[in-house]
C-alpha cells in the first residue's frame, strides 16, 4: 500500500530565495532593473529616498507593464519559466537579461515592503500589488500568506516598484556599483537623433536619482559620465555630411582643448584638403579614448575602468538610431584595432579596450547600409568599407597624437623610460602612506597606554587601505612598464633582424639586379623590334627602362648602406662623402619626383664626424628627404632641396637641410621630434604594416635619437632664403 505525499512549501522559501541567493544589495537592485529591460522599457528611473525616516528605493520604467493575469500567473508564480521559454523580449527582441524567473524576489533582499504598480498597454487600468515580506516567515505555508492586488488609475503603461523599510545603508559607492552592473545594457550616449520605428530598439537608459524630501530636490547620483566617460583622456568626434565630406576633431579631456575640425579621406592621408567619400553619407561618431595606465586614474578607479573597458570597450554601430550587432560587441574587432595592436606595428594603445564609443549612420532608404537578413551585421557594401576605414583611420590618428602629446611631458631624447617618474611618484606616495601608518600605530599604542577610549583603529585601518591601494597601483605600473619594455625590445629585435638580413643579402641583389636588367633589356629590345611602329608600346618600354634605372640607382645606394661595414661599424665618417653619395643615390628618384636636389660641400674638407654608423647618418638624410618630398607635394610649388655641410668649428660640423615644402607650423617646431607626432592621418586598421610604419610619426623621432646619441643637436631654424623649411643638425667632429 502506498500513499501519495506532496512537497510543501514553507513561506520562508521566499526569504531564502530573495535574501540568501542574492548576496549583495547592489546586485539585488540591478536584478530589478534588468526586469525593466526585459519588459522593453526604454527609460528607467531609480530614485533613492534616503532622507526621511522610511528609506525607500523606487524603480520606475516605461516598459510593457503587466496585466492582472500576468501579475498573477507571472509575477506571483515562482520559476515560471517564461523567460527561459522566451529568451527574447516581445517588442524589441532584446535578449533577456534575467532568465531564472526569480529576479523579482531580489526586492525581498532590499527591504520589508514591496509596492508594485503596473499597467499593461492592453488594459485600461493599472494594478497595485503590496507585499509584506515579513509575513513569509518560518512555519507558515507559502500559499497561505496573502498578497493584495487592487485596481488603480495609471496613465502610462509601465511598472513602478517601490521598496520600503530598506535593510541596508545606501552609500554613493554602493549605488554606483549597482549602476555599473547594468551599464552594458544601456545606450552609451546619443550621437544623432533617433527616428521612431516600430519594433526597433531605441535603447535603454537608466537614471539613478537621489530624492531629497527636505528640499524636494532630485539630483542624479550616477550615470555613465560619472562612472566611465569622465576618465577618458580624449573624445573623438567625426561626421560625414550629405555630400560625403568627412570632418573630425578630438578634444583633450584633461585640458578641454579641442583640435580644429579637419577634413579627411583615409585614402589621401597626406592631403590637407582631401576629396569627399564616394559612398559614405550621414555619419556621426563620438568615441571616448582611454589610455589604460594606472597613473592616469584616481586610485581605485583604474582597475574598475580597465575591467569595464575590457568587457565593454569598442565602438558600437547604430543604424538609423538602432543598434547593429555584432559591431562593438566583446571579441568583435570590426575596425581591426585589436589586430593592429597585437602586431605591435603601431605602438600607441589602440586596442578596442581603449575606446568606448558610438557611431551612427543614417540611411533610411537602406541603400548604403543594408542589414543581413539575420540581423547580424551589415552587408559588405562600399559604404561599409569606407566607414570602417574612415573610423579606424581617425581613431588611430588620435591615439598617435595623444601618445605624442603625452611624450612631450618628458623629452623624446630622455634616456630614462618615461614611465619611471610615475613609478617614483607612486613609490613616494607609498612611503608617505607607510609613514602615516607608522604614526597611526604609535598613536594607538600611546592611547592604549593612557587608556583612551579612542584606540585609533580607524586611522590604522585607513592607512593600511591606502598602503594596499598604492602597492597595487605600483605593482600594476611595474607590470605595465615591463610589458612596454618587452614591446620595445621586441620592436628593436625585429628592426635589428631586418637590418642584418638586409645587410646579409645586399651583395647578392647587386649582381642579380644587373643580370635581371640585361635580360629585361634583351626582352624589351626584341619586343620593341617586333612592335616597330607601335608608338604606345615604345613609350611603355622606355618608361619601364627609366623606372628600372631609377630603381637600380636607389637599390645600389641602399645596398651600399646595408653593406656589412656601413651597418655594423661605428667609425668617423666623412659628411662630405655621405651627402654626395646620398645625392647620387636618390638623384634618379628626385628627378622622377621633379625635385631639384642640390648639395653644397666644402672643396677639400671631408668633415669627419665623431664615430657613428654610416647607415644611421644616411637614414637621417633619407628621413628628412622623404618628409621634404611629401611637404613639397603638398605645397604644390617648385620643388627644391638644398643640403649644405660645413665645419662650424674644430669640434662641430653642421648639416642644414632646406626644402620648399609647405613649412612647419610655429607651434609644431618643437613637437615634430616627439614620438608619434605626425600631421599625417593614420591609415585604417586594415592597411599594411608598412603603411602603418610610414605614418607613425616616428621618423623624426628616430632622426632625433640618432643625432642625440652622438651628442649632436637637431632643430628647425629660420628657413634659408627662398626655402620654407630648414633643419639644422650639429654633429661633433672627429677629435
Amino acid at each position, binding site marked *: 500500500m502506498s500513499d501519495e505525499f506532496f512537497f510543501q512549501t514553507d513561506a520562508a522559501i521566499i526569504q531564502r530565495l530573495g535574501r540568501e541567493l542574492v548576496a549583495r544589495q547592489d546586485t539585488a537592485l540591478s536584478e530589478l532593473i534588468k526586469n525593466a529591460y526585459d519588459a522593453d522599457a526604454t527609460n528607467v528611473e531609480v530614485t533613492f529616498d534616503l532622507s526621511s525616516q522610511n528609506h525607500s528605493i523606487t524603480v520606475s520604467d516605461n516598459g510593457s507593464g503587466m496585466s492582472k493575469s500576468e501579475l498573477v500567473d507571472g509575477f506571483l508564480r515562482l520559476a515560471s519559466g517564461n523567460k527561459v521559454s522566451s529568451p527574447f523580449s516581445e517588442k524589441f527582441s532584446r535578449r533577456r537579461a534575467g532568465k531564472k524567473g526569480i529576479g523579482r524576489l531580489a526586492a525581498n533582499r532590499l527591504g520589508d515592503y514591496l509596492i508594485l504598480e503596473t499597467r499593461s498597454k492592453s488594459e485600461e487600468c493599472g494594478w497595485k500589488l503590496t507585499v509584506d515580506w515579513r509575513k513569509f516567515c518560518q512555519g507558515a505555508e507559502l500559499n497561505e500568506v496573502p498578497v493584495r492586488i487592487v485596481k488603480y488609475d495609471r496613465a502610462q503603461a509601465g511598472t513602478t516598484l517601490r521598496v520600503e523599510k530598506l535593510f541596508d545603508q545606501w552609500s554613493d559607492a554602493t549605488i554606483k556599483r549597482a549602476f555599473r552592473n547594468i551599464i552594458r545594457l544601456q545606450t552609451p550616449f546619443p550621437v544623432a537623433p533617433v527616428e521612431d520605428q516600430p519594433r526597433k530598439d531605441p535603447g535603454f537608459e537608466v537614471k539613478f536619482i537621489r530624492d531629497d524630501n527636505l528640499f524636494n530636490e532630485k539630483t542624479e547620483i550616477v550615470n555613465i559620465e560619472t562612472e566611465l566617460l569622465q576618465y577618458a583622456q580624449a573624445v573623438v568626434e567625426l561626421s560625414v555630411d550629405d555630400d560625403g565630406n568627412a570632418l573630425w576633431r578630438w578634444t583633450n579631456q584633461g585640458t578641454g582643448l579641442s583640435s580644429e575640425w579637419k577634413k579627411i579621406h583615409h585614402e589621401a592621408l597626406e592631403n590637407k584638403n582631401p576629396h569627399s567619400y564616394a559612398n559614405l553619407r550621414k555619419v556621426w561618431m563620438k568615441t571616448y579614448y582611454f589610455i589604460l595606465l594606472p597613473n592616469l586614474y584616481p586610485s581605485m578607479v583604474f582597475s574598475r575602468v580597465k575591467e569595464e573597458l575590457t568587457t565593454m570597450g569598442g565602438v558600437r554601430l547604430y543604424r538609423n538610431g538602432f543598434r547593429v550587432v555584432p559591431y562593438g560587441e566583446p571579441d568583435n574587432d570590426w575596425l581591426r584595432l585589436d589586430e593592429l595592436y597585437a602586431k605591435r606595428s603601431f605602438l600607441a594603445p589602440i586596442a578596442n579596450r581603449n575606446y568606448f564609443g558610438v557611431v551612427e549612420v543614417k540611411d533610411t532608404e537602406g541603400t548604403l547600409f543594408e542589414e543581413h537578413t539575420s540581423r547580424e551585421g551589415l552587408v559588405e557594401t562600399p559604404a561599409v568599407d569606407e566607414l570602417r576605414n574612415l573610423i579606424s583611420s581617425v581613431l588611430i590618428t588620435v591615439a598617435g597624437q595623444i601618445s605624442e602629446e603625452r611624450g612631450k611631458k618628458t623629452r623624446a631624447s630622455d634616456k630614462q623610460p618615461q614611465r619611471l617618474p610615475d613609478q617614483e611618484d607612486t613609490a613616494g606616495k607609498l612611503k608617505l602612506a607607510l609613514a602615516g601608518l607608522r604614526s597611526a600605530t604609535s598613536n594607538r599604542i600611546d592611547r592604549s597606554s593612557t587608556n583612551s577610549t579612542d584606540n585609533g583603529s580607524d586611522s590604522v585601518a585607513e592607512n593600511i587601505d591606502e598602503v594596499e591601494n598604492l602597492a597595487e597601483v605600483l605593482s600594476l605600473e611595474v607590470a605595465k612598464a615591463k610589458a612596454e619594455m618587452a614591446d620595445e625590445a621586441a620592436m628593436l629585435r625585429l628592426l635589428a633582424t631586418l637590418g642584418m638580413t638586409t645587410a646579409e643579402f645586399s*651583395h647578392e641583389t*647587386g*649582381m*642579380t639586379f*644587373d*643580370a*635581371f*636588367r*640585361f*635580360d629585361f*633589356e*634583351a626582352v624589351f629590345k626584341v619586343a620593341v623590334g617586333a612592335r616597330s611602329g607601335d608608338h604606345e608600346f615604345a613609350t611603355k618600354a622606355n618608361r619601364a627602362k627609366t623606372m628600372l634605372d631609377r630603381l637600380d640607382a636607389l637599390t*645600389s645606394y641602399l645596398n*651600399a648602406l646595408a*653593406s656589412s661595414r656601413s651597418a655594423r661599424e661605428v*667609425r*668617423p665618417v*666623412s659628411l*662630405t*662623402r655621405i651627402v654626395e653619395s646620398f645625392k*647620387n643615390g636618390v638623384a634618379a628618384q628626385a628627378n622622377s619626383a621633379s625635385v631639384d636636389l642640390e648639395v653644397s660641400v666644402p*672643396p*677639400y*674638407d*671631408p668633415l*669627419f664626424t665623431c664615430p657613428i654608423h654610416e647607415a644611421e647618418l644616411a637614414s637621417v638624410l633619407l628621413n628628412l628627404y622623404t618628409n621634404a618630398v611629401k611637404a613639397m607635394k603638398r605645397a604644390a610649388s617648385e620643388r627644391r632641396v638644398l643640403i649644405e655641410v660645413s665645419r662650424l668649428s674644430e669640434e662641430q660640423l653642421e648639416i642644414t637641410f632646406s626644402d620648399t615644402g609647405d613649412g612647419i607650423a610655429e607651434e609644431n617646431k618643437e613637437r615634430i621630434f616627439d614620438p608619434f607626432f605626425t600631421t599625417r592621418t593614420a591609415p585604417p586598421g586594415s592597411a599594411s604594416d608598412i603603411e602603418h610604419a610610414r605614418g607613425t610619426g616616428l621618423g623624426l623621432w628616430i632622426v632625433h635619437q640618432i643625432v642625440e646619441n652622438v651628442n649632436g643637436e637637431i632643430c628647425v631654424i629660420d628657413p634659408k632664403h627662398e626655402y620654407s623649411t630648414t633643419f639644422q643638425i650639429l654633429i661633433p667632429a672627429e677629435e
Partner: protein
Amino acid sequence: MNRANYWIFIDDKLDEANSFADKLMEHGEITIEAMLPSDGRDCLLSSSVHPLGVLMDVNLSDVKGELGTGPGFAQDIRVKQRSKEIPEYPVVRFSGKDPVKQKIGGDPTSNDLFDLMIYKEEVKYSRDSIVRMLNGVSDIYSWLGKFQDEKLDNSQLIQKSFGLSEPFVSGWGHDDFFKKFVTSAKVGPHVASSLLLRTFLDKTGLLIDELLLAVRLGIDIEKSGDAWFDLLGRLQTVKYRGVGSDYFDRWWARGLDDWWYSEVKATDALVSCDVVSRVEQIANWSGLTTLISLKDGEVSTFRPWYFCQLGLEQEPPQRILIDPRNAIKISTFDDFYPWVDSAYASLKLAAQFAKEDPRLDSDEVDCLIRAKE
C-alpha cells in the same frame, strides 16, 4: 653553340652568369658559354674543350659541393698551360666588386694569374669596350703563339710587337719593359700576355687611351663633335700599332709630347699648359676651330693630366679630372713597374677615403689640405 670566338665563363650562379653572357654576346662579336665550376674543370683541365678564353668568377662557393675558388681554378689552368697539357688561352677575372673585396681585396698574389681583371658592374657601363678587350686578349694570344715560329731576334721582336721603328723604341718605349717582354714571351704566351695587358695596354704609362688623350689635349670630346675625330686623324703618327692594337685604341704618351713640340710647334710642355692654351694652340695648328676645351666647373685654367683613380672605382664610376700637382699619389698593391704611371686621386676624394683606404697616405692628405686652406 657557335664555337667561333668561343669563351667559357665559370660561375657558381648559372642564371646570373647566363644573363651576363647574353649581354656580352648581344652583338655577336663573341660567344660565351656559362658553366658551373665542376663542369668547367671537366672541360678545361682535361683539354676536351679549347676555348678562346675563360672568364673566371672569384667566388665559386655558392654551388653545392664546390670547395674551390676562381683564382685556384685559374692557377690549375696556368699550371697545365705551362706544362703544355692544355692549350694557351687567356683567363680573365670576371667578378663583382664585393666578392673581390671580401676574398682577395688588398692581396695581389693572384693578379698574375689573370690577363685582365674586369668587374661585372662595368658591363652595364662599358659592354662594348669589354667585348673588344676580350677579343683583343684572344688576338694577343694568337699573335704570341705564332711569333715563336718566326725566328726573330729581340730587336725585331720588339719592333714587330709594338709597331715601332728603331728610333722610337727607346724614345717612346721603355727598355726594362721591352726586356721583360722578350723574356716573358719565351716562357709562354700567358706570361707575356699578362705583362702586356696589365702593365702596358690596360695601364696608363707608355700608352694612353682615347679619353685620356682628350684630357691631355684639354679637349671636351662630346662638345667638340666631328672636330675631335678630325684631330684623331692627324694623330695617326703617334697611334699605337703593335700587338692588340686592333682592339685597344691607344696612343704613345711620349709620342704625344713629341707631336706637341714638333707638329704644333709649342714652346711650353703640354702638361704645363692650361686647357684653354692647349686647345688654342691645337686649333691654330690644325684649323679645327670648333674644338672645345674642358672645364672644371667654372674654372677653365686647370691643367688636367689624369683621371682620379678613386673616382673611377666608385659605383657608378666618376671621371674626375685631376692635375697631379693638386692630387695625391695612390700606392699600389701590385708590383712596381717603372713604365707604368702612378695612379692619382683628387684631393677631395682622397680626404674622404684616407681613413679607410690603405693605398692613401693620410698624413700626406692632411698636409695637402692644410696647404690648400
